[in-house]
């Protein structure tokens, strides 16, 4: 058997629907149609009344999920594309994220954001918005980069008492496969060493894990042993695992598909510099998407985001300082 990243999302939702009567799914076209990406395929049929089609009202979708969470349910909201979470942004950051702090009443809900560029997606169907959400207090932000993680972390997200921004990567939906679903999982909030090495640490997450691994492979041919850390969760950040890795390698390159200013890579580099300056043998570096909207044409798109090739080039430069 082989399971895709998308299939793992569907199976995780099927499982929480089956095991937890508090769970329901709300989003545009998630019902009989099974969702724009088919992440909820057949779920409406299997769980009648618990997979609910929403109008094109992201503000009200999130608002209603918050209300349901207050009443003890565990909503999973599917936003059709991460980009369309912006009209729901206010409810997410000002209502969901503040509820527990203001009232002591937790707000357990999961907002699934199909994120990231695909060729031809263009400026409004490709965004990686994790940094916006991580900046605002009161949210957890997850960005699984493997089939196993997307499955176990989604199940975990539903079990948590906080609002979770769950950034799925569309590029991984159909192509990333695993042999089986995991039985055990790393605890939430723990980063993972995706590839061990001793010459440099690449810290990244989501689809960029695979670009980083490919870059590490490329550099291995040149005799470098590159460690790749998959953050998995962006808020909270597992600084300990990153720091331990940098302690081993002395070099850091943070890789993100999102925009540079204030992104994950800024936060990682700032933390390592503040707490682990003495561990660094060379200046910590970052590589990100370019600071423009995401272009439509594949040629431009491929140049806009980091790739194995540009990561390897950046790593090579950093290895030589």
């Amino acid at each position, binding site marked *: 058997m082989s399971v895709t990243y998308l299939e793992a999302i569907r199976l995780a939702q099927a499982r929480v629907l089956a095991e937890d009567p508090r769970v*329901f799914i709300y989003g545009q076209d998630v019902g009989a149609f099974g969702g724009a990406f088919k992440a909820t395929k057949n779920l409406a049929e299997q769980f009648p*009344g*618990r997979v609910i089609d*929403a*109008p094109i*009202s992201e*503000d*009200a*979708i*999130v*608002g*209603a*999920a*918050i*209300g*349901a*969470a*207050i*009443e*003890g*349910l565990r*909503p999973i909201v599917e936003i059709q594309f991460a980009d369309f979470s912006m*009209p729901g942004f*206010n*409810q997410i950051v*000002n*209502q969901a*994220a*503040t*509820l*527990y*702090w*203001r*009232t*002591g*009443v*937790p707000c357990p809900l999961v907002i699934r954001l199909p994120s990231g560029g695909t060729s031809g997606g263009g400026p409004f169907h490709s965004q990686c918005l994790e940094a916006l959400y991580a900046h605002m*207090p*009161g949210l*957890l932000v997850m960005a699984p980069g493997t089939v196993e993680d997307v499955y176990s972390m989604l199940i975990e997200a539903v079990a*948590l*008492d*906080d609002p979770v921004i769950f950034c799925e990567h569309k590029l991984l939906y159909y192509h990333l496969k695993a042999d089986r679903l995991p039985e055990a999982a790393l*605890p*939430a*909030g723990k980063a993972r060493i995706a590839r061990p090495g001793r010459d440099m640490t690449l810290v990244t997450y989501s689809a960029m894990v695979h670009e980083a691994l490919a870059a590490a492979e490329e550099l291995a041919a040149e005799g470098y042993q590159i460690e790749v850390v998959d953050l998995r*969760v962006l*808020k*909270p*950040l597992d*600084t*300990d695992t990153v720091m331990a890795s940098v302690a081993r390698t002395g070099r850091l390159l943070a890789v993100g598909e999102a925009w540079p200013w204030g992104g994950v890579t800024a936060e990682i580099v700032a*933390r390592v510099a503040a707490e682990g300056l003495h561990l660094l043998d060379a200046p910590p570096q970052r590589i990100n998407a370019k600071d423009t909207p995401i272009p439509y044409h594949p040629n431009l798109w491929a140049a806009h985001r980091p790739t194995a090739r540009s990561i390897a080039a950046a790593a090579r430069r950093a290895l030589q300082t």
Partner: protein
Amino acid sequence: MDDPIQCSTESRPSGGGAPGPGQALSMEADRCRSAYRWMVLARVLDDKLASLYRGGKIHGGVFLSRGQEALSAAIGVALQRGDIFAPLIRDTAGRLAFGETVAEALRTCLGSPLGPMRARDGNVHRGRPRDGLLPMISHLGAMIAVVNGMLLARRLQGRPGSVGAACLGDGGTSTGSFHEGINQAAIERLPLVLVIADNQYAYSTPTCRQFACQSLVDRAVGYGVQGHLADGTDLLECMRVLADAVGRARSGQGPQMVVARLLRLCGHGEHDDASYVDPALKESELGRDCLQVAEEILIGRGWATTADLAGWRHDAQAQIEAALAEVQRDPQPDPYQETWTAIASEGLRDGYPAPPA
């Protein structure tokens, strides 16, 4: 709630003139007396807040309900225990009638750590979500969908029968959230009662800069919901319309939109002298003080004596002074006692910044 005595002992206006012997009051009279007493309690509480504000005892703004007590109390008394209420800034009366205590109102405004918001949030941003009393966020319109979600949840859980009321001002109807919220309720046919207090101004902005329809109730048909108009200065009419709307929602007729016309008889907040309010409006029927109108009703119909009224007001004052005396003994919030985290999940609090050494 139908009867103030049931809703909360603490907040119950105590004492008060019972009807004289042989003078059995109708249920309508009883309800009206009860609603009026919530109005008085709210008015006196608001006056106290204003004086605390002027005395520099309250941090930030103070927003009063003056002129809106009839409408707001009518909502509170139309709801039942177990219902949901999302009040807005001018709902002191409705909050009290729904079960908020004077002490929690004062604690929130004074920033007591013993209040429901624990000094973290203040003034009108107070509530107890688990008890169906939602603490508004400031962003207008944002509470409607939350009420929808609570009602939806109860339906999914097989606990129907409750009604959710959400309040909004004329200005709030211009938000996208209002539209998405009422439309969502209509699609799901939820027992939502959306009450719009059209008080002629949003801060300084008159309604002609807020909408171009004849009456906001004209919006109901466009959502496929039932619309109701009320004279917001007339307690009896407010009570009748709200009871009707809440009843219809409860009996499965779907969302109800109530639009009440009235005039804000105070500034937007206590910092605002409201000099922009059109004097003609003040002179008009809309400018009547609903409290006086209610008193005329009570006296005119023989449902209360002037002595009753004076007694109730006195009781309200006594209740508020007592609560204030208690609240003023509360400790101040201590930043060193704060957990300084917005995350409920123990193991998942972000490590930066590290706690101060």
